[in-house]
């Protein structure tokens, strides 16, 4: 029987999952202890088979009241794609104004996942914002 302790990252509870499985980890073979909710079980299986993470980073903005807008992948992407996705976003420059939710990339690093803006940046010419 394989055994691993995994901290669930899906919510601040951070449950310490005791994960056990025989052979290939599957929905049937994986046993999870220590999860306070059902999400912990699917998280444990995902961690064993294809760990995923959300990338949050920033992109330069031209003509804005701030130099950077922050962005995120709308859903988690394979963990091994995170650094590649970051490198693809690094050279990009957006033109102000940028709005929350604005799509920056449709399919980042062939993950099929969108990258969207998470912090608005007004244009320098705009009157003072809120």
């Amino acid at each position, binding site marked *: 029987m394989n055994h691993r302790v995994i*901290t669930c*990252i899906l919510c*601040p509870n951070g449950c*310490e999952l005791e994960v056990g499985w025989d052979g290939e980890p599957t929905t049937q073979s994986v046993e999870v202890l220590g999860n306070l909710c059902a999400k912990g079980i699917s998280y444990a299986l995902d961690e064993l088979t294809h760990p995923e*993470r959300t990338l949050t980073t*920033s992109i330069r903005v031209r003509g804005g009241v701030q*130099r*950077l807008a922050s962005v995120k992948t709308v859903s988690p992407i394979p963990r091994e794609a995170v650094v590649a996705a970051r490198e693809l976003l690094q050279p990009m420059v957006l033109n102000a104004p940028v709005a*929350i939710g604005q799509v920056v990339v449709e399919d980042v690093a062939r993950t099929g996942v969108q990258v969207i803006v998470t*912090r608005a940046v007004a244009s320098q010419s705009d009157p003072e914002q809120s």
Partner: protein
Amino acid sequence: MTEQIREFDVAVIGGGPAGLAAAAAAASQGAQVALIDRNSQLGGILNQCIHDGFGLHAFGEVLTGPEFADRYVRRATDAGVFLQSNTLVTSLAPSGEIICSRYGQRKQLRAKAIVLAMGCRERTRGMIRIPGYRPAGVYTAGTAQWLTNLANVRIGRRVVILGSGDIGLIMARRLTWEGAEVIAVIEKLPYPSGLPRNINQCLLDYEIPLHLSHSVTCIHGKDRVERVTVSRFDETGTPVAGSEFDLVCDTLLLSVGLIPENELSRRAGVVLDRTTSGATVGASYMTNVPGIFSCGNVLHIHDLADWAAEEGERAGASAAKYAEGIHGDAVVEESIPIRAGDGIRYVIPQRVSRSTDQVLMSFRVTEPRGKTTIRAISGKAMIGSTQLNKAHPATMVQLRIQIEDLAGPVEVTCS
């Protein structure tokens, strides 16, 4: 020159999660509310917290810091709050008079109730006294976060992080993504001070070593950090001779704790708690100064913005009621004390009055523990309890008790 003094029911000082939530809650009860913030963009520290993990509690979805802030700015705007950014409060009188400076101009306003929500600042190197020169390359984790996420400044290539607070852990991952090499995270305590999930997704994912029971004992380099000496510390907090090793780095981040920013409160006569460095409050979050309320990180350091905002909502609602003449808290002398007992570091509120019917207590344990029972005792009776699978000082715990059950001072303990 006579200046116009604007009158409000409630004035909130500070536009982070707690302040925005307090203002929105007070305004949605019909109060005329002003919110004053010194920065140009509302949202406080959330603007630089571009990582996700916010909002699960408040909105049922996972948001980044700026998105979480935006939700609360909209809530406050929709509720009709008068939002005044770029405005620094320079003095606050117990009578409710507030003097501010806005683009160098003096502004005055008056409110029947005031909510303090100024947040916190970071502990700095001076406060933890590391020997060595003062070379460039030493930053607090929050400053590094601001430089990296908002100012587009690269802070270094080889980074050591002292302290395992959440901002330090988040920055370990962030700097790794930015192409820097994070050599190690050093923590003086035998356990990490950040949330377990951040240990997992920020350190384990990138195989960044975490040295527990260690601290930086010397910073080398004259103009720029060149290396740091790290030593192991024993249970009594003394460095173990011969345990030193050096780490070559050009940058040292300090993530060694946060302190409520209470200069303004103190000058208004607000009494502070020695453990939390925040105000002492009653169940309605009113301080010892009638009409002045406190919430969020200026009251006690929170692990989650969601909790700070929720606390803000409760404080804002109490402030609106106070402005209407409904007082939830009695004067300090007539209140029943709430104390932190065995294994508990502090409890908010520190007192409660019989004019409320229940109180939600927020507290922290002193050290990590496995299965734990939290009990609230009053007189000889147990008036509330909760079971936890594990308890960690990084994680705030809450427990609600009924006032009618009280038979004297309340003590919260764990075993």
